[in-house]
């Protein structure tokens, strides 16, 4: 009896491992982006908008939100990502587009004051809003979404690079975390995801 027990448990263990593997690999992904529903917390922040007003996540309730961390001096990823979002929104009809806010959060408040942010976002369209805040506010928000940022050494002209997250976080109208869009995703795939999300929440 005593010798049989481990063998029986061995079988149970093997079956459980197989079931776990099956559960992990099953199911077609619904979206092109990573589904982060339930993985990440609801949207919450205290920041300053490009008009210099204090804002919080609730102020954007009722609309789909695309959140991106960057800085206006960014040489590549930020303008490219903003342009991709603009292209994705461009293919939607007006009413759908008005249900979407793009929140560009600058993690470089030293250089990105509200005027500068307003200038940057206005070149991408009315749905784009620039936000920033104190280091403490920015760290609270970035830590909440398990992302980080860091500053490089300034060159002779005082210019420095900022490392930051390259992903777009998509939140539902009530602030629920929904999707994480990475750099590889095409404009069409992003647009399809946004359409699907909006159909679902309507």
């Amino acid at each position, binding site marked *: 009896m005593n010798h049989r*027990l*481990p063998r029986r*448990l*061995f079988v149970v*263990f093997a079956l459980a*491992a197989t079931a776990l593997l099956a559960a*992990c690999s099953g199911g077609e992904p619904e979206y092109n982006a*990573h589904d*982060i529903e339930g*993985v*990440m917390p609801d949207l919450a922040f205290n920041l300053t908008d490009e008009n210099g007003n204090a804002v919080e996540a609730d102020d954007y309730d009722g609309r789909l939100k695309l959140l991106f*961390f960057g800085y206006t001096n960014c040489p590549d990823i930020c303008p490219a990502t903003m342009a991709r979002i603009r292209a994705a929104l461009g293919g939607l009809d007006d009413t759908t587009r008005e249900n979407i806010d793009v929140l560009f959060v600058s993690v470089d408040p030293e250089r990105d004051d509200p005027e500068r942010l307003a200038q940057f976002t206005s070149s991408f369209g009315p749905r784009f809003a620039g936000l920033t805040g104190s280091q403490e506010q920015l760290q609270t928000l*970035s830590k909440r979404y*398990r*992302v*980080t*940022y*860091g500053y*490089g050494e300034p060159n002779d002209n005082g210019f420095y*690079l900022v*490392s*930051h*997250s*390259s*992903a777009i976080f998509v939140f539902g109208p009530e602030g629920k975390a929904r999707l*994480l869009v*990475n*750099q*590889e995703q095409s404009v069409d795939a992003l647009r399809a995801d946004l359409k699907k999300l909006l159909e679902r929440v309507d």
Partner: protein
Amino acid sequence: MAAEIARWLTPWEPLYWLIALFAIVAACYVRGLARRRRARDVLPAIAFFVGLASMYTVMQTHVDYYAQYMFFIHRAQHLILHHLGPFLIALSMPTAVLAAGAPLWLSRGMRGLGALPPVAGLYRVLQHPVISAALFVGLIYFWLWPSVHFTAMLSARDYWLMNLSMAVDGLLFWWFMLDPRRPGATPTTYSIGLRIIVLWAVMPPQIAIGAYIALAPDTVYDVYAVCGRAFPISPIVDQQLGGLITWIPAAMMSVVATLILLRLGFVHDRSTASPTEPAVTASRPDERQTV
């Protein structure tokens, strides 16, 4: 300076129950040392504290921040959680000292818990050589599976599940490997030869995954770009360093453990050859219980 030290000691994501657990274990151990006052406890105590402190450092200090935002530091963190820390703790055979230092109700409670049939049965299954090896390698592969790794780095819950599962499995594996008792002393004390086979069996898969990561021409783990890195470093260099850490020191641990086991086998043989000599030095069969 003081502010800098305080910043490094502050946990990036405090898990208070975990800090309490480490504190209780350390306190019991110190109390056990003080009660026993044995010179031969000194070396094991050093191994124990280095192991314990290293595991604490990579989980509950600012090091964890870097482990979350740099792949190679994450790999170093797992090397400590799964290999180095548990290896040193198992090597120190801390059960006797812990039992001497723990309050009576606690050591009795732990012993009672370990004697419960389901707990003892589960322990025997987990320490079965095949399952032990499969878990040891399987967990490395599972958490490094790109899609699983992606979610684990994004979800606070999965992140801690990952780290703690590595730590617990590391303790189980090295406990099984470095058991100093004579083979057959308990149902989970296997022969030296069998244990060496397991040690060598877990080496090639670790080398394979480490080499695969180190030599991959493209990014395997995009989550570090998604989350941003702690400081600017080329993604491919980050990945190569991480691969090398998974590949070389992890596999080396099997070689080190093999040497320790060969010495242990030699000590067992010698004490069998001269039965008049009391076999106390290395085996200490009375002092170790399964947890």
